[in-house]
């Protein structure tokens, strides 16, 4: 167990370090990072000062270590648009994104679990067909378009729910559905195939033959085991929601990290883009790491 933890942590650290290198290299692609990091109307004195600070006269690898050293201390530079340290801004906006992603994740599970289980139990029935259609549609539409259609129907047409902002629970419903729509497909399919496999196993047939009620068999004995494969991809989907949030937050004007980074790209607020992308990557890597870890706790067989 300790070995798995240590190895996973090392891998995560290498991935995050690599991500920082990629972010650094891309930010140097344009040739003149100073022009990216300062507003266009910046005075020459500020340009010179930043050049000095970044050590642009030094070799590239040395510049990377300067970047890394500062990043480790939480210093990505000042957001000139918001007049505060970039990392502080990122952490200020992050809770709203995590709230939205959690709501979206909950929505996807609420839809996927009954759909997946019932598709397996009533294989080939109309429920199975509906599950298949939802899966097909979910993977064929961009999440921002789902968001626009939801706004069109529920905010503009029926006027049931607000289209923009984040004042209360009613504000999170539409963005959460838009963001949670995509993973429903994969989750339904994984639960369905997991259930089919488990329902065919000997202990379920045994249970059935001794007269265990079908409801107990499905939900208590089969479902728990069918949940395992879902756990392995949960991290991937939670992480992909953090990334999908970039678009969905923009559609719904949700005040989270995603919209902040997108706006920062437009206002060339480069420190915020760097900090936002690196923090998203760290969350991405860490959630995968935690899932790997929890998986080895749930299923002792993979603890090799």
């Amino acid at each position: 167990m300790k070995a798995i933890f240590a190895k996973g942590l090392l891998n995560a650290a290498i991935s995050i370090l690599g991500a920082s290198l990629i972010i650094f290299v891309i930010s140097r692609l344009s040739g003149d990072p100073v022009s990216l990091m300062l507003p266009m109307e910046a005075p020459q004195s500020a340009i010179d000062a930043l050049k000095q600070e970044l050590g642009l006269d030094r070799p590239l690898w040395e510049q990377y270590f300067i970047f890394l050293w500062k990043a480790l201390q939480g210093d990505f530079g000042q957001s000139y648009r918001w007049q505060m340290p970039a990392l502080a801004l990122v952490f200020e906006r992050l809770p709203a994104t995590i709230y939205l992603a959690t709501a979206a994740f909950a929505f996807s599970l609420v839809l996927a679990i009954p759909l997946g289980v019932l598709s397996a139990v009533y294989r080939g029935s109309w429920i199975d067909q509906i599950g298949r259609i939802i899966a097909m549609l979910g993977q064929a539409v961009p999440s921002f378009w789902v968001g626009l259609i939801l706004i069109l129907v529920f905010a503009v047409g029926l006027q049931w729910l607000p289209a923009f902002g984040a004042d209360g629970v009613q504000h999170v419903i539409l963005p959460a559905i838009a963001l949670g729509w995509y993973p429903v497909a994969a989750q339904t399919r994984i639960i369905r195939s997991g259930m089919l496999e488990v329902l065919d196993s000997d202990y379920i047939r045994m249970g059935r033959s001794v007269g265990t009620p079908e409801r107990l068999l499905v939900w208590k004995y089969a479902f728990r085991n069918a949940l395992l494969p879902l756990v392995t991809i949960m991290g991937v989907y939670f992480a992909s929601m953090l990334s999908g949030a970039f678009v969905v937050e923009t559609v719904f004007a949700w005040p989270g990290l995603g919209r902040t980074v997108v706006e920062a790209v437009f206002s060339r607020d480069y420190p915020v883009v760097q900090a936002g992308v690196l923090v998203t990557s760290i969350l991405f890597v860490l959630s995968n790491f935690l899932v790997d870890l929890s998986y080895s706790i749930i299923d002792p067989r993979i603890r090799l």
Partner: protein
Amino acid sequence: MSVTSAPTPVTAADAPLPFFVRFRLKGAPWIPILILVLVLIAAVGGEGLTPHDPNGLNLGAAFKPPFWQAAGTYDYLLGTDNLGRDVLSRIIAGARVSAIVALYAIAFSGAIGTMLGIIAGYFGGIIDTTIIRIAEIKMAIPGLALALIFSATMDPGLSTVVIVIVLTYWTWYCRIIRSEVLSLRERDYVSFAKVAGCGSITIFFRHLLPNIFNTLLVLMTLQVGQVIIFEASLSFLGLGIQAPDTSWGLMLSDARQYITYAWWGITMPGIAIMLTCLSSNLVGDWLRDLLDPKRRQL
């Protein structure tokens, strides 16, 4: 996977026939194929097929609804946008951008990913570890986040979109092709080729590439939908295709502010995206089941 195992029937029976000869036309998803052909015709035909100039302004005809609504006309079948531009013409023009992006992005990410996958799987050892490690590091940055940081640095436009998609998707090919090659390289005919003195290049092109061709075809078909959605998302954010070029994502971005009075503006381009992605996914699934029954749950 030892040298003593019997010759595998896969190479003997299946390989000599080109894949299209083995197509069972019965059960083929004809409607999705038809939709993809229509998109391709629109992409190739471009402005020759549009009923109106996709960029032609006509403020007198702004916000005309589709023809089946009372205020609609047959002149503008799917209605017009805020500047009086014909929605149908712009969807046809946008098909071209989608097709170009998909073509380049899939060709380059497929070629790079496949090459690296073959190299990693075939040579193994430190080369394999290095390539897989780089792929893992790339995957630490979510696709859209990578796109954002790239767009912050480069000027947005078609080539930036293609580069971003290639950077995002090469790992997908690399990992799947690598695992395929890992099993292929243990096959007898590869060992025999090696013993007979074939160089690595010959083994790549004569023995490995033909055997991963089916997988590659399926991956590429399935990628079409993902690329189109990726491009639409970038263009919607304003970081992808730029006016005066048209793309479906850009149309949605333009129509978004007028959502309260022109529902067709955000509906029609979205339906175009959905139909194209749905079709390519269905054709991809069909090809996968047809060519490679092992991977049905891919």
